[in-house]
């Protein structure tokens, strides 16, 4: 095991070195539009992977939560006069204070979304969170007094001003936030609270029989995921400098799900791998030509085909694919399909393999049919 651990240690150090050196050697476009944006999208996907992997809750509301944080940041930091629609809301707080306010409020909204959806499972949970996301989109689209309607807000400045002024610094802020969120979740999943999430994921009925208020734990999970999505939303608002209903529309909602699935729903690190793959496809699909056929008008087709291929070839995502290839190459548990959580590599008492999440509805009342006595 120490061999594995040292191998993983070396891998982690090399990966971190690459991530740190990256903005120093790459052009601005690669630092911001590829690097920083991948990290921002990855944090949003991380919140979904956390919910689905450890709570069995596949939520479509994560983009809405991130977007809510962006709006709250705009309202907290802008002055009323910079409000594009001329409404008088805006608290002119410093960027970092505004960020804290936005993330705290988003955590609260996550709890509220949780309170609404915590008693539904599987497909019903998916549909409820989708309804919340779409509902939020229409609220910001149609409300001009608070959310600025279809225009939204512009002129949002981060603690370092515009990202383009110092791309490397903005990239480092994103990277540090992502690492903190990843390590924080990694800590929580092995805590008492994190174990309750996994118990609820595996068998909510048994959790109730052990003395747990299942709904309350699912609400807590949603709030934590809201916190993480809020981080993504704040960084995204600083990255773009503006917010508009476009950041919470249906395609953004689905993007987060696609990123998580590409990376592997059972793997927290997969959120970032998936984000990089997604952003690269998104940026370069239009400039690729295949057998003389150019995709500039049909780059969405290429993204869609890529997504389908990944789902068919690697249902547990790119990370799952790499993991299996690695395992069969090193002759250790070669045929195992079960997703083993990379977070749990240093297997202690509270290191759990992440169960593969299905979107199928689970019956919390198990054998609760009268014929089954």
């Amino acid at each position: 095991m120490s061999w594995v651990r040292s191998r993983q240690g070396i891998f982690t150090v090399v990966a971190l070195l690459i991530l740190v050196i990256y903005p120093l050697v790459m052009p601005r476009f690669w630092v911001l539009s590829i690097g920083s944006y991948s990290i921002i999208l990855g944090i949003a996907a991380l919140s979904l992977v956390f919910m689905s992997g450890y709570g069995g809750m596949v939520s479509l509301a994560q983009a809405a939560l991130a977007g809510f944080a962006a709006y709250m940041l705009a309202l907290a930091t802008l002055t009323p006069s910079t409000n594009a629609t001329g409404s008088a809301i805006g608290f002119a707080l410093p960027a970092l204070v505004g960020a804290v306010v936005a993330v705290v409020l988003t955590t609260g909204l996550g709890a509220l979304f949780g309170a609404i959806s915590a008693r539904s499972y599987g497909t019903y949970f998916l549909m409820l969170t989708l309804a919340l996301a779409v509902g939020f989109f229409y609220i910001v689209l149609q409300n001009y007094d608070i959310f600025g309607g279809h225009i939204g807000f512009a002129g949002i400045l981060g603690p370092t001003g515009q990202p383009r002024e110092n791309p490397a610094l903005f990239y480092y802020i994103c990277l540090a936030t992502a690492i903190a969120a990843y390590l924080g979740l990694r800590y929580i999943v092995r805590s008492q609270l994190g174990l309750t999430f996994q118990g609820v994921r595996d068998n909510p009925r048994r959790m109730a029989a052990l003395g747990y208020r299942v709904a309350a734990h699912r609400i807590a999970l949603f709030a934590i995921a809201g916190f993480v999505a809020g981080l993504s939303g704040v960084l995204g608002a600083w990255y773009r400098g503006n917010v508009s209903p476009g950041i919470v529309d249906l395609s953004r909602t689905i993007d987060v799900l696609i990123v998580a699935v590409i990376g592997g729903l059972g793997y927290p690190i997969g959120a970032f791998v998936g984000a990089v793959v997604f952003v690269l496809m998104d940026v370069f699909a239009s400039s690729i030509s295949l057998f003389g056929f150019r995709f500039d008008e049909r780059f969405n087709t290429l993204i869609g085909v890529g997504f389908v291929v990944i789902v068919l070839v690697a249902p547990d995502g790119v990370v799952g694919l790499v993991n299996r290839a690695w395992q069969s190459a090193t002759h250790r548990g070669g045929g195992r399909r079960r997703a083993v959580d990379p977070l749990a590599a240093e297997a202690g008492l509270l290191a759990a393999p992440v169960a593969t999440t299905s979107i199928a509805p689970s019956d919390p009342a198990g054998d609760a049919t009268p014929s089954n006595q």
Partner: protein
Amino acid sequence: MTFGTAAEVSAPALRLQGVGRRFGALQALHDVSMEVAAGERRAILGPNGAGKTTLFNVVAGDFLPTSGSVELFGTNVTSLTPYARTRLGVCRTYQTSQLFMGLTVAQSLFLAIRGVQKGRFDPRRPKADDPARIRSTEIAETVGLASVLQAPVGSLSHGQQRQLEVGMALAGNPRLLMLDEPAAGLSRSERVVLTELLLRLPRDITVILVEHDMDVALAVADRVTVMAEGTPIVEGNPSEIQANRTVQDIYLGHAVGVHHG
């Protein structure tokens, strides 16, 4: 363990009065009235469809009764949620194992211990000397799972999963322990181990046991209730039950060795 007031101590562990449960057109339980004294070992027998598991679900709170009342330790719990009843000291196992397939044995027992304690939302990691971790090791030894403490529950054999069912119920410090066919699917030697485990339980735990295996049920039980068609029909001590003609006709006569879960 908490100690109740004098009234609670003298109250029966379980009192059902006129309990009925209807699923649409099916009357699964019909006018069930029974008392189980504190510390008693009660076996509930009856053919499939007699309402035994429904009775468990009504007592544990998974279903609310459609009529009648449920009292635990002198407290009316008829409309209480399952988790609230568990915190009152009702722990149960399931006929079909209800386990955490993605967790390890140690983690499952840890959750079961912490479920009836404060700090269920504690975001900190338990330390190595956490009392609940030490206790989970002890329980694993009690139910014969010490060697697979760190194994994922999904990798356990059927017998080991049944042992974990019992272990998780014991972990909640039960005052009333309800076992729904704990021997289902166990081998003969595993049944002997289970019977010995049940006989060793401290007498301050009340045990209600649904079991088709007569060797297990009659060895453990002080008293036996026989149910048929959703209602208790005979109650007595094991030898009375074995001698009862009605029971032989409706249950023992054609059921022994046939039903296994």
